[in-house]
Structures are given as C-alpha cells and as structure tokens.
C-alpha cells in the first residue's frame, strides 16, 4: 500500500515513539484496535502467545500470534477520532500493514439487536478529525480486502454479520441511548439513508489509514439499539444484554473474527 502522508514522527530519547511507546518498525503486520485500554489485555488472551509490549496513556499494546502463527498485535486507542489519529500515525511508523478496529456501537436501524456483529463498508464523517486531513467530499471507506476477509471470517464462525455504513461523531450524549431530547429528529436522515450504526472512530480510521498506507477495517458489536425499547432488546438470539457476561462474550467473538481475518489476509484472499 502506497503511503501518501508522512507525519514525520520523531522517536524520543529512549528510541520509542512518543505516544504509544512502540519501537519504530517493530509492530506486527496486523493490529487490532479496540477503544478501551482494558480490552487490549483481554484480546491478547485470544492470541496463541501474547507478550506485553508497551502501555502509555490510553495506548496498551500486546504482541503475539494467531492460532496458525500469523503475527498480530493489539493496541488500544482510547475513545474518539483524535486518539485514533495518534494511534494510526504511530502504528504506521511502527511498521503495521493493516489495522482492524474492534469495538462497540449503537444501532439505529430497527432490525439490529444487541449482540449483532456489524462490519463497516464506509462511514459518515460526523467527527471532526478527518476534516483536518481530507476535504469534506472525500469518502471514509474501509479497505475492500479487509472487509472481504472480515466477511469470510464471520461466515466461518457462523455469524450472520451485517455489512454496511457506520456514522462516526464526537459527542456521545448527542447521539446515543442516553442522548439529549431530539435524538430521533437528529438521526432521521441517517436512518433513511441506510446508515446502520453509530460509533466514534471509523470516520477518521478509514481516510487516515488510507493516507498512511495502512489497510483498515472495522468490526463492532451492537450494544444497544437507540430506538427499540429495552424490554424488546432483551429478545435477541445473542443473549440477555443485561447479563454481565454478554458484552465480553460478544466482544470476544468480534475479536476472534478480526484475528481470523488477519489470517485470511495473510493467506491472500481466495
């Protein structure tokens, strides 16, 4: 993948990249990118072998291999597009080739239930960071090779994953199940244009990954539907969303899909 932009990061006196603590040109080619720093360690538990690499700020990194020996890492970004921009720059300088975000999202289409896996095709750019990088009409689109690998991996796990558009934004309390009044009105045009879910990072992840020469993709678990009453949401094939094990179990599935996608990318797409 050609790199179109180089942020010219300088390592610190310790030789490490300043924000993540990663060593330049040391990263695994495939990196999972959860938002929550706590999830880095959890996801590293799904590696065949895992080693702690670095933890600075919200960036916690573990490195290892998948079941078939594909080299992988997990780095947490923290929440929001600003953190994702920083993580991508340093992962690029650390030599990563593909970055797959693994996260959670809120659904806005009536047929999406908690636990559903949603793979991003592209993303409405409701966040601000990408506007500093590319003009407004530039598409936030996931790398089709990564999307195809995620689709294939989900099928292997027997998951009926949805593939569609995300919307990223910067203010949780404006577009979430806990949002200020007027949510339905604010979201109406996105519902009508087929946007599936709302999260925070993909609007920047895709175009910045493209500029940095990284293949990017995103697989998220729906944690709630903004417009379906809670009692209705408990009826779903993935389990009771109020069960404390529900979130971790579905996140594990999303992470395992991402790890399998790394293996498929490594093998070369069929």
């Amino acid at each position, binding site marked *: 993948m*050609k790199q179109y932009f180089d942020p010219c990061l300088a390592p610190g006196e310790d030789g490490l990249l300043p924000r993540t603590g990663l060593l330049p040109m040391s990263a695994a080619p495939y990196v999972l990118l959860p938002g929550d720093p706590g999830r880095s360690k959890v996801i590293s538990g799904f590696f065949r072998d895992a080693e702690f690499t670095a933890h600075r700020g919200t960036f916690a990194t573990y490195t290892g291999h998948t079941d078939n020996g594909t080299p992988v890492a997990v780095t947490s970004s923290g929440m929001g597009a600003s953190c994702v921009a920083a993580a991508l720059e340093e992962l690029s300088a650390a030599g990563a080739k593909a970055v797959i975000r693994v996260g959670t999202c809120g659904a806005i289409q009536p047929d999406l239930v908690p636990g559903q896996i949603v793979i991003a095709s592209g993303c409405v750019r409701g966040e601000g960071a990408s506007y500093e990088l590319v003009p407004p009409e530039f598409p936030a689109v996931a790398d*089709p090779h990564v999307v195809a690998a995620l689709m294939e991996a989900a099928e292997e796990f027997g998951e009926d994953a949805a593939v569609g558009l995300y919307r990223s934004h910067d203010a949780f309390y404006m577009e979430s199940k806990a949002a200020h009044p007027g949510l339905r009105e604010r979201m109406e045009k996105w519902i009508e244009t087929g946007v599936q879910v709302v999260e925070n990072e993909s609007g920047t992840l895709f175009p910045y990954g493209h500029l940095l020469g990284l293949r990017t993709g995103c697989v998220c678990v729906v944690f709630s539907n903004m417009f379906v009453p809670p009692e209705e949401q408990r009826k779903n094939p993935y389990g009771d969303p109020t069960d404390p094990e529900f979130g971790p179990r579905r996140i594990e599935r999303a992470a395992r899909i991402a790890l399998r996608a790394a293996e498929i990318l490594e093998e070369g797409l069929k």
Partner: protein
Amino acid sequence: MSFQSKKLTHPNGGMYHLGVADGQIAKKVLLLSDPRKVPLYAAYLDNAEKVAEHREYVTYTGSFEGTPLSIMSCGFGCMPMAIAVEELKHLGVEEIIKIDCCPAIGTELQPGMLCAASGAVRGEYASREYIDVSYPAVSDMGLMRRLLRSGVEHVGLFRSHDVTSLETPRTEAGRKKLAYWESLGVQVIDGESSAMLVIASILKLKAASLALISENYSSGESLQVEEAQRKALFQTAARALCLRYGGSL
C-alpha cells in the same frame, strides 16, 4: 420515508427517461456512459436484444453464462446517472456495475489495467441533493468481494466531478488540481461513480464501479482501447454480477 420517488412512465409502459418497461431488463445490469458503445459490449452477451433506446439511454438484455444480464448506457455526468439509478430501482433492478474507460492519476495504474472503486470523492452535486457530503460514496462490499474473486487486482479511490476539462493535464490549473487529488491517493477520475454509489446506497440497490484505465494523466501514457481489453472489462464485471462461488455469496 423521505426517499420514495414516483414511477413515471410513458403510455407504452416505458420508464420516462430510460424507455425501458417492466420485464425488459434483467435484475443485474452493467452501465457505461457512452450510448454509442453499448452495442460493442452487448455483443458479448448471449441472445442480446435491444429493448429500448431513448435519449442517452440505450439498453440491451440477454444473458451471460446462463444468467440474465442487461447492459445500458447511463449518459455522461451525475445528472443522467441519478435518473438511471432511480428508474432502474423502479424496474426492480438489484445489482449494477458501471464499466468504463477512465483516466488514472498517480504512479500505480497504467493504461490497460482494471481498477475497481473502493469509494469515490463526491465532486459532483447530484448526490448532494440527496444527502450531506459527509455520507461516503462506497461500493457495495458484497459486489466488491465478487469483483476481487473474479480477478480484479487493483482497487482504489475514484473522483467523480462535473467539468471534465477543468481536471486534465492540459492546463496549469488542471495539473494543480490533479496533483492535489494524487497527493490524497485518488487514482481514477470519472463523472458518474460517486452519484451512482450514493444514490444506489440510499435506494438499497447494490452498486460498484470498474474502470479500464485508458490513459495516465500523470505520466502522459495512453492507450488505444482494443477489443481484447473491452472484452476483459465486460467479462470481469459480468462474472462478478452473475457467477456464484461455492454458495458462500
């Protein structure tokens, strides 16, 4: 529903602009800009018949390896493309791939190569009447997956815009604009893809775009498109639309 246009037909049942009536077009359609080139590509269909010709829309229906397939011109620019997508939706069409000869920018695509659009910069304005420019013009990923499986090796970003001559290497201003898009990793220039992708996404029609690179604006190299290249363009897209792979699609 804000998006529900009226089905406008002539007394003979033909759609108002396309001239095509219900039952005359397959659920899978290849689109290309130039109405005069449609017969060249229709020759690769089995049992192709011209079903309509109205304004810039020329439509043939036949089959490809046993699957019904149509090929239709969509005219030049976002305006006729927007109409084409709307009227194809009214006719029950489910999947469309635009195939066209397009110029490339940058160092990666040479004349003669095929490149599928992952997405497109929305430089045209038809799609902006539907939805904010923050909404991405992206190819349907199921179709993309089938294009990759049918042999597409290059995938990149397209830029669709309305005034062709403002973004060519013939003028200093054009070279500056092209250099800007090249610096952002755009690889192919056309007039229709972003309108098609956005409007198709909104109307829940699967769409993708595949270009045969006819020249490279950055290197100045160009190509006289020949029969074999046209056929490869057609077959790659037709295969992606029509063939099934191990039941996993």
